[in-house]
């Protein structure tokens, strides 16, 4: 039963990522990888939160790191820079609902309803949005940050090197 629910979530994560990829006008050869990356990243986050009860910020970081790492081999295969895959794929993880709640809170506070519970809730939502966005950006950049390379083209895995020598 759980597997079915997870698979269904994969599908929706993938579709959300692909929809945004088309909105951002990515080359059509990258659409399938974006679907896969979106599904894998999103489901990683969901599994970490639901089954391992990990904080949403760390779970998002794990999900986006996986997307960042997987975007490198896809970039080599499909000849497009890694962000072309990674950015549409992490869009489903952008905390839209939290951002909405933060804005809602800000507007209520501005209109005079400034009770402490509302203020603390709004601040919590805002900080979560900020840290989630930070972990998304850091996760996507992770392979570049660790290998200290400027371009994904210099970042080849061992296998590909051997193939090229033959």
């Amino acid at each position: 039963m759980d597997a079915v629910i997870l698979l269904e979530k994969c599908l929706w994560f993938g579709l959300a990522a692909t929809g945004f990829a088309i909105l951002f006008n990515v080359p059509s050869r990258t659409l399938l990888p974006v679907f896969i990356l979106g599904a894998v990243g999103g489901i990683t986050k969901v599994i970490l939160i639901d089954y391992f009860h990990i904080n949403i910020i760390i779970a998002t970081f794990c999900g986006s790191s996986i997307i960042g790492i997987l975007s490198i081999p896809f970039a080599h295969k499909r000849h497009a820079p890694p962000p072309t895959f990674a950015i549409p794929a992490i869009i489903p993880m952008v905390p839209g609902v939290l951002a909405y709640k933060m804005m809602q809170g800000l507007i209520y506070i501005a209109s005079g309803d400034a009770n402490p519970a509302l203020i603390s809730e709004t601040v919590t939502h805002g900080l979560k949005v900020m840290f989630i966005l930070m972990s998304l950006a850091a996760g996507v950049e992770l392979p570049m940050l660790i290998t200290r390379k400027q371009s994904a083209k210099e970042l080849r895995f061992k296998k590909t090197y051997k193939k090229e020598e033959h």
Partner: protein
Amino acid sequence: MSNFPMSKDAKELGATLLEMSMLLMVSGASAGRVRNTIDRVSNGFGYTADLLISQRTIIISVYNPDGHCVFNSFKRTQPHHINFTTVSEISRISWEVVENKWTIYELHEAVEKLKSGTHYPRLLVLAFTALAGASFCRLLSGQPIDMAFVFLGTFIGLFVRQEAMRLRFNFYLCVYFAALTSSLITGALVHFDQNINHEIALVTSILFLIPGIPLINAFSDMIEGNLQNGLIRGLHGFIISFTIALGLFTSIAIYRF
């Protein structure tokens, strides 16, 4: 600034580099990516280039192998419009220069050709973005009826944004119109069917407007030390979010939830 005469080659290279950096910037590349690409291309021709990148203007200086400044110019960027095909094509072109020893003329031709650009059919873009909205709704445990309304709301909302952009309204105003339209459509469901809580439809119908790329690029820029670019992008993203909220609250005020 030296008075070293601008050769025709240097002038053409400089102008093309400026065009490339402008295209990258408006298509949604981070400042670091713009700088890397321009470095790669100019080094491929034996020149070096220095850039000052801001949200609306780019300044470039090109130096020849002897270290003389041979080109100096700046350019206002067009309105930002995310286009990852442009980003990916410019990356390919930059590697062609390095690996296949393109001439400046070939580079210029390729960049000019890029500007005509290919787009997905409008209906496809509308349909898939609407599907993405419906997916968000499902992920937040929306029911089929919610998904249908979110699909419709996103479809028409995006259409309104495109049309408003075409009529050259202020960018934030375009976002406001779109948010208002989408939330009016899904708000109707919340308003007229009060037996079940449909708030999730209302929230997810405006998610297609969430400024994901400005916000993510804001942090990518900051990680790379381009703090100014990052701050400006972050502020831009924040204003968009605020505009979306305004649109949403206008329709909440109309329906008096």
